């Protein structure tokens, strides 16, 4: 069973990114469970976790949200690659937080980035995923934690 502290570390990794990068905190929507994770948005940053827990944690965000985030960060390049870099940076922040707080119990991969709504990520077999909506300004992204 996932512990509250473990879940919070992933959540705080995500919200911290917004607070630091955009100087505007993100808020959490109502968390829920899903046996089949919801469809991905256009850009998704994924980290694989092994060790004490195994599975995936990913942050999936719509293009519009990332575009506003880039503007807020004084970026002028809104290309596909910049969007990928940005969502990868969010995943990187999540994995950095997790590495710092979990220590040796968790082995956390280098983040990878998936783009395109048609893409899919296989959740950890037999584990329900925790879906945590991340609201920032008028946009919404999702943090999905699927660890067994």
């Amino acid at each position, binding site marked *: 069973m996932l512990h509250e502290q473990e879940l919070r570390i992933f*959540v705080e990794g995500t919200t911290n990114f917004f607070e630091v990068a955009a100087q505007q905190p993100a808020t959490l929507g*109502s968390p829920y469970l899903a046996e089949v994770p919801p469809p991905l948005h256009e850009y998704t940053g994924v980290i694989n976790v092994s060790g004490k827990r195994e599975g995936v944690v990913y942050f999936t965000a719509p293009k519009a949200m990332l575009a506003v985030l880039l503007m807020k960060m004084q970026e002028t390049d809104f290309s596909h690659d910049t969007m990928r870099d940005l969502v990868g940076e969010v995943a990187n922040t999540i994995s950095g937080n997790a590495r710092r707080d979990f*220590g040796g119990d968790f082995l956390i991969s280098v983040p990878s980035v998936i783009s395109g709504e048609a893409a899919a990520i296989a959740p950890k077999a037999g584990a329900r995923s925790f879906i945590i909506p991340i609201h920032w300004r008028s946009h919404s992204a999702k943090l999905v934690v699927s660890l067994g």
Partner: protein
Amino acid sequence: MHRSRSFGRAPLLTVGVGLALALSLGVVLLAGFRLATELNGSVVALQTASSLQTYPADISREIDTLRERLEVRTYAGRALDDLRGTTTRLDDGLADLARASAADPVALRAARDSWARFHRELDPVLAFSGQPYRDSDTAGSVLSTAGRAHFMHVRRAQLYAARHAQALREELGKVVDGLRSSASTAALRLRGLLLGGVLAALMLALLAVHLQIAKGREERSAREAQERTRDILRTVREGFFLLDSGHRIGPVWSDALRRMFGREDFAGLSFQDLLQDLVPPATLATALKYVNLLWGDRAHENLMKSINPLAQLEITTESERGGKETRYLQFDFHRVMGPKGVQHVLCAVGDITSSVLLARELQDSQSHASAQLDLLIGLTRTDPLQLGSFLDTADAGLRLVNAIMKEPARGDGEFRRKIDGLMRELHSLKGEAAALELTSVAERLHALEGLVEACASKAELSGADFLPVVLKLDELLAHLQGVKEIAGRLMLTREPQPLGESGSIGAALESLAAQLSREHGKPIRLELAGLAQVPAAYARTVKDCLIQLLRNAAVHGIEPTDQRAARGKNGTGLISAKFAATPNGYELVFEDDGAGIAADTLKRAAVRRQLISEEEAAAMDTRAAMALMFRPGLSTADGVSMDAGRGVGMDVVARGLQSIGGRIGVATHPGRFTRFRITLPAADRATGAVA
């Protein structure tokens, strides 16, 4: 211990040998100086005495010369001067010998006496100062009167010298012999002293060399011992260090500490600083008090061990692979006693993380096995059909709970709107689980209810507040999955038990009544009638209502036995539920012979829970007050338990009945009874929303 005493004695021995060597050299030098001085005096005196030995012959010869001069009337002044000079030198020489005290006093005295006598004969000669001659025209140069007397003195002296000069020479020879012997003895003593000094110095030097070799050997052994100690401290998996009376760590510590605490500056570090950032302040304060106690002479080691506050210390340190790491350390303290009491405290620190985690896993595993066993036993007592029905209901109910969670929410209002729906659904499921005596499920539902209730009490709600809820929901779903799997296996092997007279709802109520009676210590008799006639469309709602009403009756209605006795009632509380068809549908009458419901009690509870103001309560009539019991959040219970206290129950009843077009009325008489009359429309007219 032995080694440390040897080390203490070696420098003393070296110092002693050095002092002895210095002392010997000093004695040799002093005595040698004295002997050399003495020898020098003897040699000088010997030289003097040797030269004096010739003087008697010289004096005789000079007297002879003086007489010859006087006889031939030549100048005799020079000869007299020579005599005087020799006499004076002999006087001086003898005086020097007497002062030098190196000469044999007896021989010297004899020589001096002999010379004194000789000197007396010479004195008239030496005293002459006039002209010995006188010129005469006839006889030429002749002796004057004084000259003649002088001549006579010279002749007498000549005669004396002829007789005694040899004797004086011999006397002086004896003095010389004495002095030679004395010088020889002094030289011999000096040689002996020098030889002795050299031997003593040699022996002391040998001793010093021996000591140096021994010291070198001991130092080599000490170095080897230190190396071995270092090897042990480098290899041992436990952390070792000594604390001094100032609670500071000594200079020797094992390398394992480095890994345990992630630092290297242990030498001189205080025990407080070691633990400062690792443990909560209260634990730190207790640990410091404990270490203080260890220094007391009267502290009993075994007793101290039993109250060790650091027997299992959880710390968080930086991991070698980066990030934080939680580890468990065990501190063990041993007092090192010295002649003056406690000298040090040896602290052994063990990393017991693996043991602790293993113990926890074992405990979890045992708890899980125990819970599984309890669950298994509970399931064997449960009717398979009821259980299957409950599991389906629970599945649907928790899906509904998750659906409520999934409803988008951003602001406090949207989050708060979820709470009522969550509470109703969870409470209803909990009631059913308790009725089936599925304690593990009911407890989890109760805990989940508690988390939702905690959200409700927050001033400003956000999604983060619901993280514990969704985690608990996940755990509950996993648990129900386990129950399903076990139940599935059981149902394969068990025949369904025949239904009781009142059907499956009745059986569940009887089971719940027995459980409540047991838990609250109130004897209860449950009378059921007509429940088998409950249409399937109303089954769940009726069951939910009856479960809630039964819980309320058992917890709030039926009085404790002593109160019932005081009121003249039967000790066993009576609760009845009668379901019957009516011309317009159905009627369910639920009644208990308990304490009844006082309008004032409901008003006070509503005011306490801030559902109404005191003014509203004061203006409320009995009918309106009775309606309060159906308001969400009202409970007259003082605390929260599995059965009451959250103010959800009657709300569930009212909403459930409302959903199928039913109505509920209540009649009560304080101290005597409470009666709920529920009317339901004919089943085909139900506004049913129940799946």
